[in-house]
């Protein structure tokens, strides 16, 4: 068995990795994000004690989900005893049924993260709240980590998240994938949240080095989740490719004294070629679908740079052509300048 500190680290890593998936499934079961958040937190705390004593169980994710569901049952039972709340009563009965059905079998935990992503990015929440809630609920980042990223006090960030969950419940915002007519706009909203997180990872305002890198990694991870759940939406793949290609140059952007090294002078041997390959492969699969958008185009421009072995060898004609198309879709000072 691992020594306690390493065990805690392993547990925390696992929790962070699985948090979004477990929470999303829990919300469906218990009907409230705040309750789901509370009981999952409790379950994690119980895990830290119990797994230290007995080792990590065979299926830690199922353990956490089952423990959280049981805590939710206790909570709902206590509340229902004192006030006959019809919706909560039915959740309680459903939940008990689910837990009984699980038994000792490790049932497949359905992936409800798509619903969760859309809910966190709902237009009824302001932009900063959308970003913070996505990082917490889907990304599993702690409130402290998110506060650091925004240079907020942890208590202020905690309040923001509580208010957001309260609004979701009080205003009756449903946990579902939006209808077909609304989907294009709403997906744009989710992509904007993810891209914001990515850019925060590069922004000078988001605190220490460590936080910055993990934010961009988190954005890439969220885009992967979204892309795997909605592969037909080409701009998701476009954004993922864009972020991968941008991030592939991370190691070469700064010189030894912290100065900015422009693309022209970056050491291309130190670009992350796995990420470049992944980004380019994504584009090769996505562009032929002919549903082009700004993220795909920006990714394509980045790909042309990535494919050139030197600055001089860059296919400038292609880049110019891509900027032309980009300008038509999304005119901006940046595209004019090129």
């Amino acid at each position, binding site marked *: 068995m691992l020594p306690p500190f390493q065990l805690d680290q392993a547990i925390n890593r696992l929790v962070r990795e699985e948090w979004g998936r477990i929470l999303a499934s829990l919300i469906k079961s218990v009907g409230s994000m705040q309750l789901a958040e509370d009981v999952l937190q409790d379950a994690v705390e119980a895990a830290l004690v119990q797994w230290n004593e007995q080792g990590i169980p065979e299926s830690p994710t199922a353990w956490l989900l089952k423990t959280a569901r049981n805590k939710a049952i206790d909570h709902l039972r206590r509340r229902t005893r004192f*006030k006959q709340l019809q919706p909560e009563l039915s959740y309680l009965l459903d939940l008990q049924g689910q837990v009984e059905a699980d038994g000792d079998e490790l049932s497949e935990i359905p992936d409800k993260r798509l619903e969760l992503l859309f809910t966190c990015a709902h237009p*009824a929440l302001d932009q900063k709240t959308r970003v913070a809630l996505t990082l917490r609920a889907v990304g599993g980042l702690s409130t402290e980590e998110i506060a650091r990223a925004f240079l907020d006090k942890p208590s202020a960030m905690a309040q923001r998240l509580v208010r957001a969950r309260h609004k979701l419940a009080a205003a009756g915002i449903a946990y579902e994938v*939006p209808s077909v007519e609304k989907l294009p706009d709403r997906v744009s909203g989710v992509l904007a949240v993810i891209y914001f997180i990515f850019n925060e990872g590069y922004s000078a305002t988001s605190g220490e080095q460590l936080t910055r890198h993990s934010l961009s990694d988190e954005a890439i991870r969220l885009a992967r989740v979204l892309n795997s759940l909605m592969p037909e939406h080409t701009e998701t793949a476009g954004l993922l490719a864009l972020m991968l290609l941008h991030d592939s140059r991370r190691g070469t952007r700064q010189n030894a004294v912290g100065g900015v090294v422009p693309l022209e002078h970056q050491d291309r041997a130190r670009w992350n070629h796995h990420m470049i390959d992944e980004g380019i492969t994504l584009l090769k699969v996505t562009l032929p679908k002919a549903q082009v958008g700004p993220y795909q185009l920006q990714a394509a421009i980045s790909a042309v740079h990535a494919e050139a072995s030197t600055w001089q060898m860059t296919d400038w004609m292609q880049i110019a052509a891509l900027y032309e198309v980009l300008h038509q879709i999304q005119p901006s000072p940046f595209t004019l300048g090129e």
Partner: protein
Amino acid sequence: MQYMCLIYSVENQGPQPGSEAFGEYIQAYQAFTKLCLDNGVMKSGDALQPVSTATTVTLENNGKLEVTDGPFAETKEQLGGYYLLDCKDLDEALDYAAKIPTAQHGRVEVRPVVVWDN
């Protein structure tokens, strides 16, 4: 869930009484009300008379009764009417709110009504 849709606009903007556009505006409201009734979401709704007819009451200054001519605040946009709609979730309420004719030139605030525990 019940949602209050509070309709705000600048009073002399939008179609004015007497104009042709006003006739269409009224018809649009009638169509909207019918839509809500047909879909079973309509709880109530009314236009309010202009802000010039408003009177405000308060006892906020040491319990002293104060009656003032005018609305609660002198804002550019004023409350002009409301609908109370029974919808399954916020998105449904927002869909209806967007169809309220005044939303074309004004703004509609959508707020859930408190559900009291018995």
